[in-house]
């Protein structure tokens, strides 16, 4: 690589990172708005409609409000961990998005810029590692708050997220066997003929259930089950630290939707009348809609029953599916 092309590459990368970061933040903001509107529609309510036209500026009003709130650290809390926990959560949530490809390569002055922040050849493993770190944010928040409700929330999510990483990882194995690669970019490329969902439907179901549990979304939102645990691990958090947890939750939702799209629905591939990243965006939005729809419909399961379901049903099933996939391939 010449010096000139390196500079072009560097500038392009920095711009790409900034664009992705801002786009992710905006998506989170409007995802919260969309969730409130969609659920309101499903529940025969109106939803936010005061700030801006049809309430479109509501997310910015919320963020401003959270900024202006007093930032409390409860007495007896472990201050260092208390501050560190939301940072870990938000950091890992954003980090995970960096390996997701969302478009074809673009070429500027003979320099190939892939539309992906970094094309790791172990992308899937990297994601699993990041998800594992994500648990720390919640566990530490629950532990350091010096509150019993938070502790319960932290404990529950610790058990739940660690257990559900197993089927989440195993559900991807079939895909890896089909595409012969751990890089998400190659996985998308391998789906140019047909999407993996056609061959890996059972794996997709496992993936879907695990990803709902992994993001602590309804009906598996035990760590923050408000009727039981007040607000779970973030009971004691206020102001911007609370906003960080909130952002992290929605960022993980987006990342996992994007991952599902990449693994099972052909990523950014689609008919050519729309640019690839628009296809990617539409698919992610449909996945997110599914997440929101679930929340409006289902009651919450009980935490120990979910764990039992994971160890006795989901895990054996996903192992079996790997065997079947292997048998078919041979």
């Amino acid at each position, binding site marked *: 690589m010449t010096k000139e092309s390196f500079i072009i590459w560097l500038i392009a990368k920095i711009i790409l990172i900034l664009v992705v970061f801002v786009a992710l933040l905006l998506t989170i903001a409007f995802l919260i708005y969309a969730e409130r509107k969609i659920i309101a529609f499903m529940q025969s309510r109106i939803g936010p409609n005061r700030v801006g036209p049809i309430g479109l500026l509501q997310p910015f009003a919320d963020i401003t409000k959270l900024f202006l709130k007093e930032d409390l650290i409860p007495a007896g809390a472990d201050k260092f961990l208390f501050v560190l926990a939301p940072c870990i959560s938000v950091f890992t949530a954003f980090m995970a998005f960096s390996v997701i490809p969302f478009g074809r390569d673009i070429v500027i002055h003979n320099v190939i810029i892939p539309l992906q922040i970094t094309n790791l050849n172990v992308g899937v493993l990297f994601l699993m590692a990041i998800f594992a770190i994500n648990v720390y944010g919640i566990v530490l928040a629950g532990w350091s708050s010096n509150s*019993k409700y938070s502790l319960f929330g932290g404990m529950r999510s610790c058990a739940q997220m660690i257990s559900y990483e197993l089927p989440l990882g195993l559900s991807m194995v079939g895909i890896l066997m089909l595409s012969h690669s751990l890089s998400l970019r190659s996985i998308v490329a391998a789906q140019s003929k047909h999407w993996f969902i056609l061959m890996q439907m059972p794996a997709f179901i496992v993936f879907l259930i695990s990803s709902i549990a992994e993001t602590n979304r*309804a009906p598996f939102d035990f760590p923050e089950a408000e*009727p*039981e645990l007040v607000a779970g691990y973030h009971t004691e958090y206020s102001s911007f630290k609370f906003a960080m947890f909130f952002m992290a939750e929605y960022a993980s939702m987006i990342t996992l939707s994007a991952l599902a799209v990449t693994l099972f629905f052909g990523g950014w591939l689609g008919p050519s009348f729309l640019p690839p990243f628009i296809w990617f965006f539409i698919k992610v939005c449909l996945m997110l809609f599914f997440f929101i729809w679930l*929340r*409006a419909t*289902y009651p*919450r399961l*009980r*935490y120990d029953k979910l764990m039992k379901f994971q160890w006795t049903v989901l895990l054996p099933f996903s192992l079996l599916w790997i065997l079947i996939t292997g048998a078919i391939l041979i």
Partner: protein
Amino acid sequence: MVNTEIKKETMILNMGPQHPSTHGVLRLVLELDGETVINATPVIGYLHTGMEKTVESERYIQAITIVDRMDYLSCFFNELGYILAVEDLLNIEVPERVKFMRVILCELQRIASHLVWLGTHALELGAMSVMLYTFRERELILELFEMCSGYRMNSSYMRVGGFYLDFPKGFIDRVKDFIDIFPSKINEYETLLTKNVIWKERTVGLGILSAEDAINFGVSGPTLRASGVKWDIRMAHPYSGYEFFEFEVPVGKHGDVYDRYLVRMEEMRQSIRIISQAVENLPEGSVSINNPDIILPSKKDAQIGMEEMIHHFKIVSDGFSVPQGSTYIAVESPRGELGFYLVSDGGNKPYRLKVRTPSFANLQALPLMLKGIMISDVVAVIASTDIVLGDVDR
């Protein structure tokens, strides 16, 4: 030697009085082993308002507005129970139209109360949409109450000896509209819950209360009937004309949270049945007894007639006296047996009013139901007993 014994400790968790799902201000002291409840102690009194005592310093007619506010989700039952007790001491037999009107209002109120229960119960198990659907229908009922009494809750519409005003024009038609649409709405809630796997997983076999325990604790209402005891005061000791209506008393088998849910859902259907019979056969006639010592004359008469004006002045300033004696009258409120023990010393104010509230008795059985279950199920069990803290503390 190394001591290998692991030290085990239990944890005390204060649930409430400020907690999202303790139905007001109930405080539960939970002794926990991990997430399992070993012991639960309800602490009450955070909503104590001294209503029984306040009533002693108010005239009989004024006390209606006070008893109204005890169980704020079923005000008509409080009114009816109290008024029936006063009428019993006065030895009054009200016209049939009054009885039918009271039944219509009470059964509408029962549906409204059960809708709040269903909404909060589902919300506590995480199904939040159901809550908004039930409140949508409850709104229709509250509008009906507003139409006839001017108030949506705590309406103070009933009077000793009947009603001050008849149902307004068009009220019966709107009640008919409501009973036409409501059964389909119950089906709508049931589609979301009754056969839902997660809902059944969360409620079947949970918080079991045996029939024997239920009777020993004095539990009544749907909570008792879910345990398999067919005891409904409307059936056993009909009051206010319930003997004229045909309805069934739904009974559960296992006494768990799911059975309590099924029983209350069926009760709403039966209430609709009673209301439609009452509306069909509503007799014509006066809406109060003909006794100027107890019933206020109409405003128009009081402004021109000498006698009426004197009666008006007398009732408003001094009320009416009730003969010496005591009585106990119980009505079947949405929560169970709501009993009023009224003692009169012959004056114009109650000497003593003791209220036997269903929530208070049902709450006693709560620690029994909570023993050995998980903390997530605690809220489900509380919701299934359908307590109202205003009713417990009064």
